[in-house]
């Protein structure tokens, strides 16, 4: 926990208290270049490296535990490739 704090992520994101909401992570695999920014910096450790190779030979992230995502969009704005984003779980799964 200390570790992610260091990067000044909103603590509310971290403990999911910001809002009672859940995010759904969407990865556009072929855009991913496997930098790992999203994985390492998700305040809720939602993501992990997948074993899949995409078209360019990178391993895109995959969701570890979807229920932990608080839809903070941090992965979305941090990703240099526009390869990951999240939506309100409800918006979508209706």
């Amino acid at each position, binding site marked *: 926990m200390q570790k992610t704090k260091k990067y000044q992520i909103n603590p509310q994101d971290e403990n999911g208290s910001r809002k009672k909401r859940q995010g759904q992570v969407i990865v556009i695999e072929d855009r991913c*270049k496997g930098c790992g920014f999203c994985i390492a910096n998700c305040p809720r450790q939602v993501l992990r490296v997948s074993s899949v*190779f995409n*078209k*360019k*030979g990178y391993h895109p992230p995959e969701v570890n535990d979807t229920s932990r995502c608080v839809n903070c969009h941090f992965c979305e704005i941090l990703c240099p490739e526009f390869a990951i984003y999240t939506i309100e779980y409800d918006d979508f799964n209706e």
Partner: protein
Amino acid sequence: MVMTEKRERHVLITGFGGQGIVMAGDILGKAATLYDHKHATMTQNYGPEARGGACSSQVIISGEEILFPCVEEPEILICMSQEAYMKNVKSLRPEGTLIWDTDLVHTRKADMHHKTFHIPATRFAEQLGTKMMANIVMLGFLSAVEHLVHAEALKKAVLDSVPAATKDNNIHAFNTGREYGTSIIKGLVKPEPGKHQD
């Protein structure tokens, strides 16, 4: 023994920027000129990207002066990316040799009429510590499956071209590739099955 011929031998090494494609071509050229005392040209083709853009190096080795330095119909084509494979395989001469990285290229069955070899060079390199040495693994492999330059010449050229601190690792990588190639040639190892697209 294999070096007496005067004809030009055309090699095309292809992949992405960052894979050491140009360096591989350079080493091959150096081996031919500095240690095998032949003529060689190496030209490169690359985009503006520092990493990830299509990239190739074209090596011509000959007993005589080389004028036109472009490799249009290679007799040896090395592919280290899918994109490179798709783009270049058509140019390979019918009797030519196709070499690729097992993990990075899914070949088409239609292309399998060539003499073909593949090696998981990137994987081997990763196992040896860094992906960056895939090109050296590939060179070692090449030295085993095709007689372009003397293996010793190639090894010396590798040593010339890599940072001092990494010499040992690189020779190790070279040997890994060469041994794998030799085993395959000798039938000692059955190559992993290649991945096909279709």
